[in-house]
């Protein structure tokens, strides 16, 4: 075999797998814009003959998806901010401050990355119930933050270790307090790592299913993934409508991915590469 033939075969493999990865998603987007007549036989894989944007309008207005969407935005934003702040502070203490149980505490957080969330689910359910938080916004924000903290701390401590101490030192000598120094010097320096950690937290929170499905029972506080799942059960024959709901649930993550594909890729494999 000549080199050229070999190279073409390899290229063909790349293209074929790219198609396998893309085609189901292409199909999803096109059927979200079709009527059942097209989806169920008249036009299964082509572009819509008649672009039914109505599916999207209907999904937003009838299925309560707008409410779920706003809930998911709220859960994700609060989780990202809380996780970022708490783990930036903890990460600072774990790398820059001097204390006895530092290694132990770091070990506990490292362990946290490996806990399968389902192993904590039932007691978490009970304790949130006892505290009167289960079923409300906090009842989901707290678990989300708690289980996002370990990975966020890993990403941030890795970064802290690599930044020189000179700038802080100068500030402290000038009489700057710890809190002010943290807020005005440290936070700006760790911004890139904070962004990486935040992307990771956001994607996991936005897409999370098990906690949201178990810890929330009222429609009012439901997240988008759980909402779409029950929506899909309710309107199971209206594929266009369900498809529209699914695209709506995916759009924010895909948008972020296309805008920041390098950062997103980096943040999702950060744990693997550093660990």
């Amino acid at each position, binding site marked *: 075999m000549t080199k050229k033939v070999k190279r073409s075969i390899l290229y063909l493999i790349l293209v074929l797998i*790219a198609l396998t990865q893309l085609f189901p*998603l292409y199909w999803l987007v096109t059927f979200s814009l079709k009527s059942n007549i097209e989806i169920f036989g008249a036009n299964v894989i082509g572009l819509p003959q008649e672009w039914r944007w109505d599916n999207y309008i209907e999904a937003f207005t009838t299925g309560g998806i707008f409410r779920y969407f706003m809930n998911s935005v709220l859960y994700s934003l609060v989780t990202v901010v809380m996780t970022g702040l708490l783990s930036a502070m903890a990460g600072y203490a774990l790398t820059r401050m001097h204390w006895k149980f530092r290694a132990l505490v770091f070990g506990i957080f490292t362990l946290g990355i490996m806990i399968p969330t389902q192993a904590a689910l039932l007691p978490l359910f009970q304790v949130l119930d006892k505290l009167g938080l289960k079923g409300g916004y906090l009842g989901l924000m707290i678990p989300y933050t708690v289980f996002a903290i370990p990975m966020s701390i890993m990403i941030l401590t890795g970064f802290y270790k690599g930044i020189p101490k000179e700038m802080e030192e100068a500030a402290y000598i000038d009489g700057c307090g710890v809190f002010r120094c943290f807020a005005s010097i440290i936070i700006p320096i760790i911004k890139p790592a904070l962004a990486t950690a935040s992307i990771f937290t956001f994607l996991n929170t936005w897409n999370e299913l098990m906690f949201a499905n178990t810890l929330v029972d009222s429609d009012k506080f439901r997240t988008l993934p759980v909402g*779409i799942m029950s929506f899909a059960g309710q309107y199971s024959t209206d594929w266009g409508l369900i498809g529209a709901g699914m695209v709506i649930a995916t759009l924010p993550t895909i948008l972020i991915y296309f805008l920041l594909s390098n950062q997103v890729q980096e943040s*999702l494999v950060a744990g693997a590469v550093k660990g």
Partner: protein
Amino acid sequence: MERMLGKKKYIAVFVLPALLLFLLFGIAPLITTGVYSLFDYDGIGKMDFLGLDNYIELFTTDRYFPRALRNSFILVGASIFIQLPVSLALAMILSRGVKGEKAFRTIYFIPVVISSMVIGQLWMKIFHSEYGLLNIFIRFLGMKDFEYSWLSNPSTAFLSTVVPSIWQYIGYHMLIFYAGIKSISTDYYEAAKIDGATNWQTSIKITIPLLAPVIKTCMVFALTGSLRAFDLIYVMTNGGPNHASDVPGTLMYNNLFRKGLYGYGSAQAFFIVLECLVLSLVISKLFKRAEENASAI
């Protein structure tokens, strides 16, 4: 600075919020699950201590757990022997610098950022017996005998959930491998080139051995991810029909939240934690030699 950063007050303020939250809502529940697993407990009545009876029951009288466990190991096998080799091959081809390298990387990774709820719903539609893509394609080829009701047929239901599980994370592992390959010094390749090695030879003799630590990481991820599998299967079949596609994760979930078997379900949950830990250690042990060889190159 040293004096400032040694003050207990500051350390407490910085580390305690995250630590207390994590201990209270992360570690304590995990330990509680471990404790529950030793009891007969329905959440309301009193707790009867059983010792390890729940765990013994998993393998003796439970009609569904052995099958669920076997299913999870099929998933592990598919991840390690199908998903990882495909990802590794893609990473190796891409890292040689082909046209459109970045575009390929971006495309392969797209499914990773999508919610498993959406992936599950989408593949449910693909496997739909009447209007699903797969059966429409099969009908188009005229192979009527292969037209199954994929998700409601006990013999195909589980395998139908394996396909999207593999599909979704190919790009994820590809990227980890890719990053690993890119971090290998080009000196090795130049030396190999001078010695007249072919691309294939350099892949087998240099890239793969030097990649041992990364392969280990991916294998541990594939292993633990498969053992704790839940979302996709919950969405697509919820373990059905008649438990044919159950994995320990779905079985546990339904025992806890449908049947109220708090003690028994906790034993299943804790079993997942334990098997993840033990088997990850086994993989690390197996790779120890390979890694030593890698550092000898």
